[in-house]
Protein backbone atom coordinates (compact mmCIF):
# COMPACT_ATOMS: atom_id res chain seq x y z
CA UNK A 1 0.00 0.00 0.00
CA UNK A 2 2.68 2.38 1.07
CA UNK A 3 4.79 1.36 -1.85
CA UNK A 4 2.11 2.07 -4.37
CA UNK A 5 1.58 5.46 -2.84
CA UNK A 6 5.26 6.21 -3.10
CA UNK A 7 5.19 5.10 -6.67
CA UNK A 8 2.28 7.41 -7.33
CA UNK A 9 4.05 10.42 -5.88
CA UNK A 10 7.04 9.62 -8.01
CA UNK A 11 4.82 9.48 -11.05
CA UNK A 12 3.29 12.80 -10.19
CA UNK A 13 6.65 14.48 -9.75
CA UNK A 14 7.83 12.90 -12.98
CA UNK A 15 4.83 14.33 -14.71
CA UNK A 16 5.44 17.74 -13.26
CA UNK A 17 9.01 17.64 -14.41
CA UNK A 18 8.07 16.47 -17.83
CA UNK A 19 5.37 19.02 -18.36
CA UNK A 20 7.80 21.84 -17.85
CA UNK A 21 8.67 23.97 -20.83
CA UNK A 22 11.28 22.54 -23.07
CA UNK A 23 10.96 18.93 -22.05
CA UNK A 24 10.67 16.62 -24.99
CA UNK A 25 7.08 15.41 -24.88
CA UNK A 26 6.38 11.87 -25.86
CA UNK A 27 2.97 10.73 -26.91
CA UNK A 28 2.61 8.87 -23.64
CA UNK A 29 3.25 11.99 -21.63
CA UNK A 30 0.69 13.87 -23.67
CA UNK A 31 -1.87 11.17 -23.08
CA UNK A 32 -1.13 11.19 -19.39
CA UNK A 33 -1.57 14.91 -19.27
CA UNK A 34 -4.88 14.59 -21.04
CA UNK A 35 -5.89 12.00 -18.48
CA UNK A 36 -5.03 14.41 -15.72
CA UNK A 37 -6.67 17.49 -17.12
CA UNK A 38 -9.66 16.23 -18.99
CA UNK A 39 -11.83 13.70 -17.17
CA UNK A 40 -14.55 13.74 -19.82
CA UNK A 41 -12.06 12.61 -22.42
CA UNK A 42 -10.96 9.77 -20.18
CA UNK A 43 -14.54 8.65 -19.61
CA UNK A 44 -15.17 8.84 -23.36
CA UNK A 45 -12.05 6.88 -24.09
CA UNK A 46 -13.06 4.19 -21.60
CA UNK A 47 -16.53 4.08 -23.09
CA UNK A 48 -15.17 3.62 -26.59
CA UNK A 49 -12.83 0.88 -25.43
CA UNK A 50 -15.67 -0.86 -23.58
CA UNK A 51 -17.85 -0.71 -26.67
CA UNK A 52 -15.10 -2.11 -28.83
CA UNK A 53 -14.44 -4.88 -26.33
CA UNK A 54 -18.14 -5.63 -26.08
CA UNK A 55 -18.38 -5.84 -29.84
CA UNK A 56 -15.41 -8.15 -30.09
CA UNK A 57 -16.42 -10.34 -27.16
CA UNK A 58 -20.12 -10.40 -28.04
CA UNK A 59 -20.42 -14.21 -28.22
CA UNK A 60 -19.03 -14.51 -24.70
CA UNK A 61 -21.26 -11.86 -23.20
CA UNK A 62 -24.63 -13.16 -24.24
CA UNK A 63 -26.20 -16.63 -24.28
CA UNK A 64 -28.23 -15.90 -27.39
CA UNK A 65 -27.16 -15.84 -31.02
CA UNK A 66 -27.41 -12.79 -33.23
CA UNK A 67 -30.02 -14.41 -35.43
CA UNK A 68 -31.79 -16.72 -32.94
CA UNK A 69 -35.51 -16.23 -33.36
CA UNK A 70 -37.97 -16.98 -30.59
CA UNK A 71 -41.41 -16.34 -32.01
CA UNK A 72 -43.15 -17.09 -28.71
CA UNK A 73 -41.49 -14.06 -27.15
CA UNK A 74 -41.84 -11.44 -29.86
CA UNK A 75 -41.57 -7.80 -28.76
CA UNK A 76 -41.11 -8.82 -25.13
CA UNK A 77 -40.50 -5.96 -22.71
CA UNK A 78 -37.12 -5.81 -20.92
CA UNK A 79 -36.86 -8.53 -18.30
CA UNK A 80 -34.25 -10.52 -16.44
CA UNK A 81 -33.87 -12.90 -19.36
CA UNK A 82 -33.81 -10.19 -22.00
CA UNK A 83 -32.39 -7.06 -20.33
CA UNK A 84 -33.30 -4.89 -23.32
CA UNK A 85 -36.32 -6.84 -24.48
CA UNK A 86 -36.78 -8.67 -27.77
CA UNK A 87 -37.59 -7.52 -31.27
CA UNK A 88 -40.29 -8.45 -33.76
CA UNK A 89 -38.66 -11.80 -34.42
CA UNK A 90 -38.11 -12.58 -30.75
CA UNK A 91 -34.38 -11.91 -31.03
CA UNK A 92 -32.63 -10.56 -27.95
CA UNK A 93 -32.05 -6.81 -28.40
CA UNK A 94 -28.94 -6.72 -26.22
CA UNK A 95 -27.37 -9.49 -28.28
CA UNK A 96 -28.15 -7.71 -31.50
CA UNK A 97 -26.87 -4.47 -30.04
CA UNK A 98 -23.54 -6.11 -29.26
CA UNK A 99 -23.22 -7.75 -32.65
CA UNK A 100 -24.45 -4.56 -34.34
CA UNK A 101 -21.68 -2.64 -32.60
CA UNK A 102 -19.18 -4.55 -34.73
CA UNK A 103 -20.65 -3.19 -37.91
CA UNK A 104 -21.56 0.24 -36.65
CA UNK A 105 -18.22 1.00 -35.02
CA UNK A 106 -16.38 -0.12 -38.09
CA UNK A 107 -18.72 1.80 -40.35
CA UNK A 108 -18.37 4.84 -38.16
CA UNK A 109 -14.61 4.95 -37.89
CA UNK A 110 -13.18 3.41 -41.03
CA UNK A 111 -14.92 5.52 -43.70
CA UNK A 112 -14.53 8.66 -41.58
CA UNK A 113 -10.80 8.00 -41.43
CA UNK A 114 -10.55 7.12 -45.10
CA UNK A 115 -12.45 10.17 -46.27
CA UNK A 116 -10.38 12.28 -43.90
CA UNK A 117 -7.12 11.07 -45.38
CA UNK A 118 -8.33 11.34 -48.95
CA UNK A 119 -9.89 14.76 -48.38
CA UNK A 120 -6.88 16.12 -46.52
CA UNK A 121 -4.38 15.03 -49.13
CA UNK A 122 -6.44 16.31 -52.04
CA UNK A 123 -7.41 19.49 -50.20
CA UNK A 124 -3.85 20.43 -49.35
CA UNK A 125 -2.68 19.62 -52.87
CA UNK A 126 -5.46 21.71 -54.40
CA UNK A 127 -4.88 24.63 -52.08
CA UNK A 128 -1.12 24.68 -52.27
CA UNK A 129 -0.47 23.83 -55.88
CA UNK A 130 -3.36 25.86 -57.28
CA UNK A 131 -3.84 26.15 -61.00
CA UNK A 132 -4.90 23.06 -62.89
CA UNK A 133 -4.53 20.68 -59.93
CA UNK A 134 -6.81 22.89 -57.90
CA UNK A 135 -9.34 23.24 -60.71
CA UNK A 136 -9.57 19.50 -61.38
CA UNK A 137 -9.78 18.41 -57.75
CA UNK A 138 -12.25 21.04 -56.72
CA UNK A 139 -14.53 20.55 -59.73
CA UNK A 140 -14.73 16.85 -58.93
CA UNK A 141 -15.50 17.81 -55.34
CA UNK A 142 -18.18 20.22 -56.54
CA UNK A 143 -19.81 17.53 -58.63
CA UNK A 144 -19.73 15.19 -55.64
CA UNK A 145 -21.34 17.82 -53.46
CA UNK A 146 -23.89 18.81 -56.08
CA UNK A 147 -25.73 15.51 -55.67
CA UNK A 148 -27.71 14.90 -52.51
CA UNK A 149 -25.34 12.69 -50.53
CA UNK A 150 -27.98 10.02 -49.98
CA UNK A 151 -28.70 9.80 -53.68
CA UNK A 152 -25.03 9.57 -54.48
CA UNK A 153 -24.52 6.89 -51.84
CA UNK A 154 -27.46 4.92 -53.26
CA UNK A 155 -26.13 5.14 -56.79
CA UNK A 156 -22.65 4.02 -55.77
CA UNK A 157 -23.99 1.24 -53.57
CA UNK A 158 -26.27 0.09 -56.33
CA UNK A 159 -23.41 0.01 -58.79
CA UNK A 160 -21.02 -1.75 -56.43
CA UNK A 161 -23.46 -4.12 -54.78
CA UNK A 162 -23.86 -4.78 -51.04
CA UNK A 163 -21.21 -5.80 -48.58
CA UNK A 164 -19.37 -3.95 -45.88
CA UNK A 165 -16.31 -3.04 -47.96
CA UNK A 166 -18.50 -1.39 -50.52
CA UNK A 167 -20.23 0.53 -47.76
CA UNK A 168 -16.78 1.83 -46.69
CA UNK A 169 -15.97 2.86 -50.19
CA UNK A 170 -19.31 4.53 -50.71
CA UNK A 171 -19.18 6.53 -47.51
CA UNK A 172 -15.61 7.60 -48.30
CA UNK A 173 -16.57 8.78 -51.76
CA UNK A 174 -19.52 10.68 -50.37
CA UNK A 175 -17.66 12.38 -47.52
CA UNK A 176 -14.23 13.30 -48.89
CA UNK A 177 -15.38 16.40 -50.76
CA UNK A 178 -16.43 18.22 -47.60
CA UNK A 179 -13.10 17.53 -45.97
CA UNK A 180 -11.22 18.59 -49.08
CA UNK A 181 -13.04 21.91 -49.25
CA UNK A 182 -12.37 22.78 -45.65
CA UNK A 183 -8.74 21.74 -45.84
CA UNK A 184 -8.24 23.64 -49.08
CA UNK A 185 -9.60 26.82 -47.52
CA UNK A 186 -7.28 26.39 -44.58
CA UNK A 187 -4.34 25.71 -46.88
CA UNK A 188 -4.99 28.87 -48.85
CA UNK A 189 -4.83 30.80 -45.62
CA UNK A 190 -1.66 29.08 -44.45
CA UNK A 191 0.02 29.22 -47.83
CA UNK A 192 0.61 32.94 -47.57
CA UNK A 193 1.62 32.91 -43.93
CA UNK A 194 5.12 33.96 -43.17
CA UNK A 195 6.23 30.69 -41.70
CA UNK A 196 5.55 28.95 -44.99
CA UNK A 197 7.50 31.71 -46.68
CA UNK A 198 10.27 31.19 -44.16
CA UNK A 199 10.26 27.48 -44.88
CA UNK A 200 10.63 28.24 -48.58
CA UNK A 201 13.48 30.55 -47.77
CA UNK A 202 15.48 27.83 -46.10
CA UNK A 203 14.88 25.74 -49.20
CA UNK A 204 12.12 23.35 -48.16
CA UNK A 205 10.49 21.62 -51.12
CA UNK A 206 6.83 21.99 -51.97
CA UNK A 207 5.91 18.47 -50.98
CA UNK A 208 7.65 18.82 -47.69
CA UNK A 209 5.98 22.15 -46.96
CA UNK A 210 2.62 20.56 -47.57
CA UNK A 211 3.44 17.59 -45.37
CA UNK A 212 5.34 19.18 -42.57
CA UNK A 213 4.10 22.73 -42.37
CA UNK A 214 0.58 22.86 -43.68
CA UNK A 215 -0.98 19.51 -42.75
CA UNK A 216 -0.04 19.70 -39.05
CA UNK A 217 -1.64 23.11 -38.90
CA UNK A 218 -4.86 21.64 -40.28
CA UNK A 219 -4.91 18.93 -37.63
CA UNK A 220 -7.36 20.63 -35.25
CA UNK A 221 -9.84 21.09 -38.07
CA UNK A 222 -9.33 17.53 -39.22
CA UNK A 223 -10.00 16.18 -35.74
CA UNK A 224 -13.26 18.06 -35.55
CA UNK A 225 -14.26 16.86 -39.00
CA UNK A 226 -13.38 13.33 -37.99
CA UNK A 227 -15.59 13.36 -34.94
CA UNK A 228 -18.39 14.86 -37.00
CA UNK A 229 -17.98 12.31 -39.76
CA UNK A 230 -18.34 9.31 -37.47
CA UNK A 231 -21.99 9.86 -36.57
CA UNK A 232 -22.73 10.92 -40.13
CA UNK A 233 -21.30 7.65 -41.41
CA UNK A 234 -23.25 5.60 -38.88
CA UNK A 235 -26.45 7.35 -39.84
CA UNK A 236 -25.86 7.11 -43.59
CA UNK A 237 -25.19 3.42 -43.20
CA UNK A 238 -28.46 2.99 -41.36
CA UNK A 239 -30.34 4.77 -44.13
CA UNK A 240 -28.64 2.61 -46.73
CA UNK A 241 -29.55 -0.49 -44.76
CA UNK A 242 -33.10 0.74 -44.51
CA UNK A 243 -33.26 1.09 -48.28
CA UNK A 244 -31.95 -2.40 -48.65
CA UNK A 245 -28.54 -1.34 -49.89
CA UNK A 246 -26.36 -1.66 -46.80
CA UNK A 247 -26.25 -4.32 -44.13
CA UNK A 248 -29.09 -6.75 -44.63
CA UNK A 249 -31.22 -8.41 -41.98
CA UNK A 250 -30.96 -10.76 -40.23
CA UNK A 251 -27.47 -9.28 -39.67
CA UNK A 252 -27.55 -6.40 -37.25
CA UNK A 253 -26.32 -2.85 -37.31
CA UNK A 254 -27.52 -0.08 -35.03
CA UNK A 255 -29.00 1.93 -37.83
CA UNK A 256 -30.84 -1.08 -39.15
CA UNK A 257 -32.19 -1.84 -35.68
CA UNK A 258 -33.60 1.66 -35.35
CA UNK A 259 -35.17 1.46 -38.73
CA UNK A 260 -36.89 -1.82 -38.10
CA UNK A 261 -37.85 -0.74 -34.60
CA UNK A 262 -39.55 2.35 -35.94
CA UNK A 263 -42.65 0.38 -36.89
CA UNK A 264 -43.10 -0.76 -33.30
CA UNK A 265 -42.34 2.58 -31.68
CA UNK A 266 -45.63 2.65 -29.74
CA UNK A 267 -45.84 -0.92 -28.51
CA UNK A 268 -42.12 -1.70 -28.15
CA UNK A 269 -40.12 1.54 -27.76
CA UNK A 270 -37.04 -0.34 -26.48
CA UNK A 271 -36.34 -1.50 -30.00
CA UNK A 272 -35.41 2.01 -31.00
CA UNK A 273 -34.28 3.24 -27.65
CA UNK A 274 -31.36 0.86 -27.12
CA UNK A 275 -29.57 1.34 -30.46
CA UNK A 276 -30.46 5.05 -30.42
CA UNK A 277 -28.84 5.47 -27.05
CA UNK A 278 -25.86 3.48 -28.24
CA UNK A 279 -25.39 5.72 -31.27
CA UNK A 280 -25.76 8.82 -29.15
CA UNK A 281 -23.25 7.55 -26.59
CA UNK A 282 -20.64 6.60 -29.14
CA UNK A 283 -21.02 9.87 -31.02
CA UNK A 284 -20.70 11.90 -27.85
CA UNK A 285 -17.76 9.81 -26.74
CA UNK A 286 -15.92 10.44 -29.99
CA UNK A 287 -16.71 14.13 -29.79
CA UNK A 288 -15.40 14.49 -26.27
CA UNK A 289 -12.36 12.43 -27.03
CA UNK A 290 -11.74 14.56 -30.08
CA UNK A 291 -11.90 17.70 -27.98
CA UNK A 292 -9.56 16.20 -25.43
CA UNK A 293 -7.06 15.22 -28.09
CA UNK A 294 -7.33 18.66 -29.59
CA UNK A 295 -6.39 20.24 -26.27
CA UNK A 296 -3.19 18.26 -25.91
CA UNK A 297 -2.17 17.89 -29.54
CA UNK A 298 -2.46 21.53 -30.51
CA UNK A 299 0.29 23.32 -28.62
CA UNK A 300 -1.51 26.64 -28.86
CA UNK A 301 -4.44 25.29 -26.87
CA UNK A 302 -2.24 24.13 -24.05
CA UNK A 303 -3.09 25.42 -20.66
CA UNK A 304 0.05 26.51 -18.94
Amino acid sequence: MLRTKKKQTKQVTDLLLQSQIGEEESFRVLMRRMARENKTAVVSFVLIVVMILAAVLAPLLTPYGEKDMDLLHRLAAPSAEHPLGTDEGGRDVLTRLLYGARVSLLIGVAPALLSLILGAVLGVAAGYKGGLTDAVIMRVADVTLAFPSMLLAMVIMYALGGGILNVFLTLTLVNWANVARVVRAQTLKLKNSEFVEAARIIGVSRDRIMRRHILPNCLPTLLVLFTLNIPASILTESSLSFLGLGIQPPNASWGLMINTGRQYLYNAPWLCFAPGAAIMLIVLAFNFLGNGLLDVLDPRMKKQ
Partner: protein
Amino acid sequence: MNEKTLEIRGLTVCIPTEKGVIRPVNDVSLEVPAGSIVGIVGESGCGKSMTARAVMGLLRYPAKATAGSVSLCGRAITSLPEKERRKLRGAEISMIFQEPMTSLNPVVKVGRQVEEAIRLHMSCSREEAKARTVEIFREVEIPEPENRCGCYPHQLSGGLRQRVMIAMAMVCKPKLLIADEPTTALDVTVEAQILKLLERLRDTGTSVLIISHNLGVIAKVCDYVYVMYAGRIVEQAETNRIFDRPAHPYTRGLFRSVASLREGSGTLETIPGVVPNLLRLPAGCSFSLRCRQCGENCRRIMPDLAETEPGHKVRCFLAGKEGTE
Protein backbone atom coordinates in the same frame (compact mmCIF):
# COMPACT_ATOMS: atom_id res chain seq x y z
CA MET B 1 37.93 42.92 -50.67
CA ASN B 2 37.11 42.95 -54.32
CA GLU B 3 34.89 39.94 -54.22
CA LYS B 4 31.20 40.53 -54.50
CA THR B 5 28.86 38.24 -52.64
CA LEU B 6 25.84 39.62 -54.39
CA GLU B 7 25.68 41.56 -57.58
CA ILE B 8 22.44 42.82 -59.04
CA ARG B 9 22.49 44.39 -62.48
CA GLY B 10 19.54 46.28 -63.90
CA LEU B 11 16.95 44.26 -62.03
CA THR B 12 13.40 45.10 -63.00
CA VAL B 13 10.27 43.56 -61.53
CA CYS B 14 6.96 43.99 -63.31
CA ILE B 15 3.43 43.53 -62.08
CA PRO B 16 0.81 43.64 -64.81
CA THR B 17 -2.40 45.26 -63.61
CA GLU B 18 -5.62 46.13 -65.38
CA LYS B 19 -4.53 49.72 -65.74
CA GLY B 20 -1.08 48.96 -67.02
CA VAL B 21 2.22 47.49 -65.99
CA ILE B 22 3.85 48.78 -62.83
CA ARG B 23 7.49 48.36 -61.98
CA PRO B 24 7.99 48.21 -58.22
CA VAL B 25 11.67 47.58 -58.88
CA ASN B 26 13.04 49.51 -61.82
CA ASP B 27 16.53 49.04 -63.18
CA VAL B 28 18.12 48.46 -59.79
CA SER B 29 21.81 47.66 -59.63
CA LEU B 30 23.53 47.03 -56.38
CA GLU B 31 26.29 44.98 -54.96
CA VAL B 32 27.19 43.52 -51.62
CA PRO B 33 30.94 43.05 -51.24
CA ALA B 34 32.11 40.02 -49.33
CA GLY B 35 32.24 40.53 -45.59
CA SER B 36 30.19 43.69 -45.44
CA ILE B 37 26.80 44.89 -44.35
CA VAL B 38 24.89 46.85 -46.93
CA GLY B 39 21.64 48.66 -46.30
CA ILE B 40 18.67 49.64 -48.43
CA VAL B 41 16.54 52.48 -47.06
CA GLY B 42 13.37 54.01 -48.29
CA GLU B 43 9.76 54.67 -47.50
CA SER B 44 7.13 51.95 -47.43
CA GLY B 45 6.29 50.82 -50.92
CA CYS B 46 9.50 51.94 -52.56
CA GLY B 47 10.45 48.44 -53.65
CA LYS B 48 12.87 47.38 -50.96
CA SER B 49 11.22 44.12 -50.04
CA MET B 50 10.36 43.41 -53.66
CA THR B 51 14.06 43.57 -54.48
CA ALA B 52 14.80 41.10 -51.70
CA ARG B 53 12.11 38.73 -52.92
CA ALA B 54 13.43 38.90 -56.44
CA VAL B 55 16.89 37.99 -55.18
CA MET B 56 15.49 35.03 -53.29
CA GLY B 57 13.44 33.98 -56.28
CA LEU B 58 10.28 34.18 -54.23
CA LEU B 59 8.27 36.78 -56.10
CA ARG B 60 4.59 36.12 -55.81
CA TYR B 61 2.52 35.80 -58.93
CA PRO B 62 1.84 38.05 -60.86
CA ALA B 63 5.05 39.88 -59.97
CA LYS B 64 7.88 38.82 -62.26
CA ALA B 65 11.49 39.74 -62.74
CA THR B 66 11.57 40.81 -66.36
CA ALA B 67 15.06 42.13 -66.78
CA GLY B 68 18.42 42.17 -65.12
CA SER B 69 20.62 39.60 -63.53
CA VAL B 70 21.40 38.52 -60.01
CA SER B 71 24.63 36.76 -59.31
CA LEU B 72 25.80 35.20 -56.13
CA CYS B 73 29.57 34.99 -55.77
CA GLY B 74 29.95 35.44 -59.48
CA ARG B 75 27.36 32.82 -60.38
CA ALA B 76 24.24 33.98 -62.17
CA ILE B 77 21.24 32.65 -60.30
CA THR B 78 18.27 34.24 -62.06
CA SER B 79 18.42 31.77 -64.92
CA LEU B 80 18.68 28.67 -62.74
CA PRO B 81 15.77 26.24 -62.74
CA GLU B 82 13.56 26.31 -59.66
CA LYS B 83 15.04 23.12 -58.24
CA GLU B 84 18.55 24.51 -58.32
CA ARG B 85 17.42 27.75 -56.78
CA ARG B 86 15.75 25.90 -53.99
CA LYS B 87 19.02 24.24 -53.15
CA LEU B 88 20.64 27.65 -52.93
CA ARG B 89 18.02 28.98 -50.57
CA GLY B 90 19.02 28.30 -47.03
CA ALA B 91 22.44 27.00 -48.00
CA GLU B 92 23.97 29.96 -49.83
CA ILE B 93 21.43 32.70 -49.41
CA SER B 94 18.97 33.15 -46.63
CA MET B 95 16.52 35.67 -45.31
CA ILE B 96 14.89 36.84 -42.13
CA PHE B 97 11.64 38.75 -41.83
CA GLN B 98 10.39 41.59 -39.77
CA GLU B 99 7.67 39.60 -38.06
CA PRO B 100 9.25 37.00 -35.80
CA MET B 101 5.76 36.34 -34.41
CA THR B 102 4.44 34.77 -37.56
CA SER B 103 7.54 33.50 -39.32
CA LEU B 104 7.75 30.30 -37.32
CA ASN B 105 5.40 27.39 -37.73
CA PRO B 106 3.18 27.58 -34.62
CA VAL B 107 2.74 23.83 -34.26
CA VAL B 108 6.32 22.68 -34.69
CA LYS B 109 8.90 22.98 -31.94
CA VAL B 110 11.54 25.58 -32.75
CA GLY B 111 14.35 23.06 -32.40
CA ARG B 112 12.72 20.90 -35.05
CA GLN B 113 12.41 23.83 -37.39
CA VAL B 114 16.09 24.61 -37.16
CA GLU B 115 16.92 20.91 -37.54
CA GLU B 116 14.87 20.89 -40.69
CA ALA B 117 17.06 23.61 -42.16
CA ILE B 118 20.17 21.67 -41.25
CA ARG B 119 19.01 18.36 -42.59
CA LEU B 120 17.81 19.85 -45.85
CA HIS B 121 21.23 21.06 -46.81
CA MET B 122 23.69 18.89 -44.95
CA SER B 123 23.74 15.18 -44.84
CA CYS B 124 23.77 14.35 -41.18
CA SER B 125 21.89 12.24 -38.69
CA ARG B 126 19.09 13.41 -36.48
CA GLU B 127 21.42 13.49 -33.46
CA GLU B 128 24.03 15.56 -35.22
CA ALA B 129 21.38 18.00 -36.36
CA LYS B 130 20.12 18.25 -32.81
CA ALA B 131 23.56 18.91 -31.46
CA ARG B 132 24.16 21.51 -34.13
CA THR B 133 20.86 23.19 -33.27
CA VAL B 134 21.85 23.56 -29.64
CA GLU B 135 25.19 24.91 -30.76
CA ILE B 136 23.69 27.50 -33.07
CA PHE B 137 21.20 28.53 -30.40
CA ARG B 138 24.14 29.16 -28.14
CA GLU B 139 25.83 31.19 -30.85
CA VAL B 140 22.82 33.47 -31.24
CA GLU B 141 22.77 33.80 -27.47
CA ILE B 142 19.56 32.03 -26.68
CA PRO B 143 19.66 31.25 -22.97
CA GLU B 144 19.28 27.59 -21.98
CA PRO B 145 19.53 26.36 -25.57
CA GLU B 146 18.89 22.72 -24.69
CA ASN B 147 15.53 23.55 -23.18
CA ARG B 148 14.49 26.11 -25.76
CA CYS B 149 14.73 23.54 -28.55
CA GLY B 150 11.62 21.87 -27.21
CA CYS B 151 9.60 25.07 -27.06
CA TYR B 152 6.84 26.04 -29.40
CA PRO B 153 7.09 29.52 -30.90
CA HIS B 154 4.31 30.93 -28.75
CA GLN B 155 6.29 30.11 -25.64
CA LEU B 156 9.12 32.43 -26.67
CA SER B 157 9.39 36.21 -26.59
CA GLY B 158 9.70 38.27 -29.73
CA GLY B 159 13.43 38.75 -29.34
CA LEU B 160 13.98 35.05 -28.81
CA ARG B 161 11.89 34.22 -31.84
CA GLN B 162 13.92 36.57 -33.98
CA ARG B 163 17.04 34.85 -32.68
CA VAL B 164 15.57 31.51 -33.65
CA MET B 165 14.85 32.92 -37.10
CA ILE B 166 18.41 34.13 -37.38
CA ALA B 167 19.68 30.77 -36.16
CA MET B 168 17.57 29.07 -38.79
CA ALA B 169 18.82 31.41 -41.49
CA MET B 170 22.50 31.17 -40.63
CA VAL B 171 22.82 27.58 -39.53
CA CYS B 172 24.09 26.45 -42.93
CA LYS B 173 26.53 29.34 -43.08
CA PRO B 174 25.04 31.08 -46.10
CA LYS B 175 27.14 33.54 -48.04
CA LEU B 176 24.43 36.14 -47.95
CA LEU B 177 21.77 36.93 -45.42
CA ILE B 178 18.97 39.27 -46.37
CA ALA B 179 17.40 40.88 -43.32
CA ASP B 180 14.07 42.45 -44.24
CA GLU B 181 13.26 44.91 -41.47
CA PRO B 182 14.88 42.63 -38.90
CA THR B 183 14.22 44.80 -35.89
CA THR B 184 11.03 46.66 -36.70
CA ALA B 185 8.87 44.54 -34.43
CA LEU B 186 11.33 44.58 -31.54
CA ASP B 187 12.07 47.07 -28.80
CA VAL B 188 15.30 49.05 -28.82
CA THR B 189 17.33 46.96 -26.38
CA VAL B 190 16.57 43.80 -28.29
CA GLU B 191 17.20 45.69 -31.51
CA ALA B 192 20.72 46.54 -30.38
CA GLN B 193 21.40 42.91 -29.52
CA ILE B 194 20.11 41.65 -32.84
CA LEU B 195 22.23 44.20 -34.70
CA LYS B 196 25.29 43.06 -32.76
CA LEU B 197 24.46 39.56 -33.83
CA LEU B 198 24.35 40.62 -37.46
CA GLU B 199 27.71 42.30 -37.08
CA ARG B 200 29.17 39.17 -35.61
CA LEU B 201 27.70 37.24 -38.48
CA ARG B 202 29.50 39.51 -40.90
CA ASP B 203 32.74 38.89 -39.07
CA THR B 204 32.32 35.17 -39.59
CA GLY B 205 32.12 35.65 -43.34
CA THR B 206 28.46 36.09 -44.14
CA SER B 207 27.58 39.25 -46.01
CA VAL B 208 24.39 40.93 -44.90
CA LEU B 209 21.88 42.98 -46.85
CA ILE B 210 19.69 44.93 -44.46
CA ILE B 211 16.44 46.39 -45.62
CA SER B 212 15.06 49.01 -43.33
CA HIS B 213 13.26 52.28 -43.04
CA ASN B 214 14.99 52.87 -39.76
CA LEU B 215 17.92 55.18 -40.38
CA GLY B 216 19.30 54.51 -36.92
CA VAL B 217 19.70 50.83 -37.74
CA ILE B 218 21.36 51.67 -41.04
CA ALA B 219 23.73 54.18 -39.49
CA LYS B 220 24.73 51.76 -36.77
CA VAL B 221 25.70 48.70 -38.76
CA CYS B 222 25.91 49.36 -42.49
CA ASP B 223 29.10 49.91 -44.44
CA TYR B 224 27.35 51.09 -47.56
CA VAL B 225 23.86 52.43 -48.14
CA TYR B 226 21.45 52.48 -51.04
CA VAL B 227 18.48 54.82 -50.94
CA MET B 228 15.46 53.72 -52.93
CA TYR B 229 12.55 55.78 -54.10
CA ALA B 230 9.62 54.62 -56.23
CA GLY B 231 11.43 51.51 -57.43
CA ARG B 232 14.71 53.18 -58.28
CA ILE B 233 17.94 53.75 -56.49
CA VAL B 234 18.30 57.48 -56.03
CA GLU B 235 21.48 57.64 -54.04
CA GLN B 236 24.24 55.33 -52.95
CA ALA B 237 27.32 55.97 -50.86
CA GLU B 238 29.32 54.80 -47.92
CA THR B 239 27.41 55.18 -44.70
CA ASN B 240 29.56 57.92 -43.22
CA ARG B 241 29.50 59.95 -46.38
CA ILE B 242 25.79 59.71 -46.94
CA PHE B 243 25.02 60.73 -43.38
CA ASP B 244 27.52 63.59 -43.58
CA ARG B 245 26.69 64.88 -46.98
CA PRO B 246 23.44 63.55 -48.36
CA ALA B 247 23.16 64.78 -51.92
CA HIS B 248 19.70 63.81 -53.09
CA PRO B 249 16.85 65.99 -51.84
CA TYR B 250 14.94 62.83 -50.91
CA THR B 251 17.76 61.51 -48.77
CA ARG B 252 18.02 64.85 -47.04
CA GLY B 253 14.29 64.85 -46.46
CA LEU B 254 14.53 61.39 -44.95
CA PHE B 255 17.26 62.45 -42.57
CA ARG B 256 15.36 65.53 -41.54
CA SER B 257 12.27 63.48 -40.80
CA VAL B 258 13.98 61.64 -37.97
CA ALA B 259 13.07 62.89 -34.53
CA SER B 260 16.13 64.09 -32.70
CA LEU B 261 16.70 64.58 -29.01
CA ARG B 262 19.21 67.32 -29.60
CA GLU B 263 18.31 70.75 -28.41
CA GLY B 264 17.02 73.30 -30.82
CA SER B 265 16.09 70.79 -33.42
CA GLY B 266 12.70 72.48 -33.59
CA THR B 267 9.66 71.08 -35.31
CA LEU B 268 9.98 67.71 -36.95
CA GLU B 269 10.07 68.10 -40.68
CA THR B 270 8.29 65.84 -43.08
CA ILE B 271 8.51 65.30 -46.79
CA PRO B 272 5.30 66.70 -48.24
CA GLY B 273 3.14 64.37 -50.23
CA VAL B 274 3.27 60.60 -50.59
CA VAL B 275 5.11 58.09 -52.72
CA PRO B 276 3.62 58.57 -56.20
CA ASN B 277 1.33 55.98 -57.68
CA LEU B 278 3.56 53.71 -59.69
CA LEU B 279 1.02 53.75 -62.50
CA ARG B 280 1.27 57.50 -62.84
CA LEU B 281 4.91 58.28 -62.38
CA PRO B 282 5.93 61.72 -63.56
CA ALA B 283 7.76 61.88 -66.86
CA GLY B 284 10.90 63.22 -65.26
CA CYS B 285 12.41 62.52 -61.86
CA SER B 286 9.98 60.46 -59.82
CA PHE B 287 10.68 62.66 -56.81
CA SER B 288 9.93 65.87 -58.70
CA LEU B 289 6.39 66.09 -57.36
CA ARG B 290 7.62 66.37 -53.79
CA CYS B 291 10.94 68.04 -54.33
CA ARG B 292 11.38 71.61 -53.11
CA GLN B 293 14.17 72.35 -55.49
CA CYS B 294 12.48 70.89 -58.48
CA GLY B 295 13.42 72.67 -61.66
CA GLU B 296 12.15 72.68 -65.22
CA ASN B 297 14.47 69.87 -66.29
CA CYS B 298 13.46 67.65 -63.41
CA ARG B 299 9.87 67.51 -64.62
CA ARG B 300 10.78 66.40 -68.10
CA ILE B 301 13.81 64.16 -67.92
CA MET B 302 14.70 61.34 -65.58
CA PRO B 303 18.18 62.05 -64.26
CA ASP B 304 20.79 59.30 -64.41
CA LEU B 305 22.52 57.80 -61.44
CA ALA B 306 25.70 59.82 -61.75
CA GLU B 307 28.85 59.61 -59.72
CA THR B 308 29.52 62.88 -57.94
CA GLU B 309 32.47 61.65 -55.95
CA PRO B 310 34.18 58.26 -55.97
CA GLY B 311 31.78 55.73 -54.48
CA HIS B 312 28.95 58.24 -54.24
CA LYS B 313 26.25 58.17 -56.88
CA VAL B 314 23.19 60.38 -57.00
CA ARG B 315 20.20 60.47 -59.28
CA CYS B 316 19.64 64.22 -59.33
CA PHE B 317 20.45 67.10 -61.65
CA LEU B 318 21.24 69.37 -58.76
CA ALA B 319 23.64 67.06 -57.01
CA GLY B 320 27.23 68.12 -56.77
CA LYS B 321 26.32 71.74 -57.19
CA GLU B 322 26.81 73.64 -54.01
CA GLY B 323 24.16 75.79 -52.51
CA THR B 324 21.25 73.67 -53.53
CA GLU B 325 19.90 73.76 -50.04
